């Protein structure tokens, strides 16, 4: 017997599985046709999906709107870039980005978590603005030009290795990392620890009287989100070979918020769908008119007003009902624990 939140999460997992299948289909098609651009565009969409995921963890679960999540994405990207230029190791870059964003988000969290609601939004916005300005003015970090010349790396797994320059190979790696982050977040949200976060959004005032420290829960969510954003950002220079201060600008944070709202706040998988949708929209509309802001702004407003749970919110309830009718469900179609295995399996076979 699953409770309702677990049921919703399982519905998200089904959508996640669908997403992974579609992504693998794309990878297979891309590999067959020798495509580069769409696979790499898809890879970028996935990287930004990681940022959107971290925004949804904060907004959709602990109820805190961050307008500056690109800060940690940018820190991850810069640290990864600096590491790669010294030593082109995937694992080292990811570890360095993890450590740096862990420290940065603890510091940021100590400041931002003194306040809540709209003040939290403004503080996170300001923090990112100030840090972006500092990077923009630091010659050692390439200042306004950013840094180019990040090498194309080989990513080793024991005896195997994949080149970040291989469109299919790197797409699958990024897919694995991002879906891994999704699975981890989804898993945590379905534990007693994660349920306290959900409780924060539902009624923060009541939480301490149940015996949980609001501050600690908020910090945990904030740091987790920062690290997720940072690990996603660390993948960016591997794909594009450069970093620039624009990665920390409000445009990047704002796009993540738009993705989450389009996909569905508080659905987790919605952030990933939303991010891909936004990239597709921008790519299509952007080639057709330079006034893409109007279209995206309009869609965004309509979603906020009429689809508070976004596109995923439209379909997920139906899946939940369907899942709850299938009784008893010992191992459902997509258990979070199965996801990495499925991804690993398909990655193996497609190599």
């Amino acid at each position, binding site marked *: 017997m699953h*409770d309702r939140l677990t049921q919703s999460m399982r519905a998200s997992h089904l959508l996640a599985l669908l997403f992974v299948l579609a992504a693998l289909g794309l990878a297979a098609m891309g590999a067959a046709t020798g495509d580069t651009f769409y696979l790499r565009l898809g890879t970028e969409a996935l990287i930004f999906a990681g940022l959107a995921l971290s925004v949804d963890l904060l907004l959709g679960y602990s109820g805190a709107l961050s307008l500056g999540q690109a800060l940690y994405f940018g820190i991850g990207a810069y640290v990864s870039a600096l590491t790669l230029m010294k030593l082109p190791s995937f694992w080292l870059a990811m570890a360095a980005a993890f450590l740096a964003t862990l420290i940065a988000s603890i510091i940021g969290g100590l400041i931002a978590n003194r306040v809540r609601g709209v003040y939290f939004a403004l503080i996170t916005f300001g923090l990112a603005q100030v840090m972006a300005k500092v990077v923009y003015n630091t010659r050692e970090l390439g200042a306004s030009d950013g840094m180019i010349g990040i090498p194309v790396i080989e990513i080793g797994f024991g005896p195997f290795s994949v080149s970040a320059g291989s469109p299919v190979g790197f797409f699958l790696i990024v897919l694995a990392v991002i879906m891994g982050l999704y699975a981890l977040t989804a898993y945590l949200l379905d534990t007693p620890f994660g349920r306290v976060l959900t409780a924060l959004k*539902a009624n923060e*005032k009541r939480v301490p009287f149940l015996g949980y420290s609001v501050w600690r829960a908020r910090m945990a969510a904030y740091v987790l989100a920062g690290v997720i954003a940072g690990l996603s950002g660390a993948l960016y220079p591997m794909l594009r070979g450069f970093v620039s201060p624009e990665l920390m600008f409000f445009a990047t944070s704002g796009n993540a918020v738009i993705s989450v709202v389009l996909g569905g706040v508080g659905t987790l998988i919605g952030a990933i769908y939303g991010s891909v949708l936004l990239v597709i929209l921008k790519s299509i509309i952007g080639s057709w008119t330079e006034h893409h802001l109007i279209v995206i702004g309009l869609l965004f407003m309509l979603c906020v007003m009429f689809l508070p749970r976004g596109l995923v919110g439209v379909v997920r309830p139906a899946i939940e009902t369907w899942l709850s009718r299938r009784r008893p469900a010992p191992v459902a179609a997509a258990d979070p624990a199965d996801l990495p295995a499925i991804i690993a399996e398909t990655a193996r076979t497609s190599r």
Partner: protein
Amino acid sequence: MKPVLDIRDLGISFGGLKAVDQVSFQAQRHRITTVIGPNGAGKSTLFNLISGALKPHRGQVLIDGVDMTGAAPERTKAAGLSRSFQITSLFPELTVAENLRLAAQVLEPTGRAFLPVGRSTQALARTGQMLERFQLAHKRDDLAGNLSHGDQRRLEIAVCLASEPKILLLDEPTQGMSHGDTAQTARLVRSLTDDVTILLIEHDIGLVMDLSDHVVVMHQGRKLAEGPPDLVRADPAVQAAYFGHA
């Protein structure tokens, strides 16, 4: 016998107003102690001081002999104190069962905080008990926000009890209830004393006299009198200050 809750000379003032002033009393194990007094007497403020929502300016709060003065709510909770609110405070977007499970998950060993909630056997068992005991089992999957007022008030008590506290602070549990519901809730509260010590704020004098083992009368922030219900009712000072107005 050692009191479960020992309030000593508690006081706080807002601006110049002494909202609670020199209040001392004790709550005995498995008894119902009721705080009564006219509106603005400082009853809810007293609850806020005891539960950690407010820090007292003076005095002490001892829970089971341990000084918990000014401790944050999550710490008084850990010390075994659970409280309800005058205005229902639940998680309206979560189901009835999840409201209870959230409260009961403190019963789990720390190691299970990072295992799926389905593995929280103790919390889930406790949730089941509470659903049965408070006759909410048929509504377990309803959203708390969609319940009737009476059900919400009952759920609030259940949430407080789900964590197996030693002391239960109930702030007007029958507030806004129909006659029938009030009687039912009174029976329920009485039945709880097997497990917990209860500190109650209540306006319904009939109910107070019926239910209480011990009554503390507050007036303008101070304790006016205390004692068994009958004695308190007979107290001329209480008559003048409280019942005279009622």
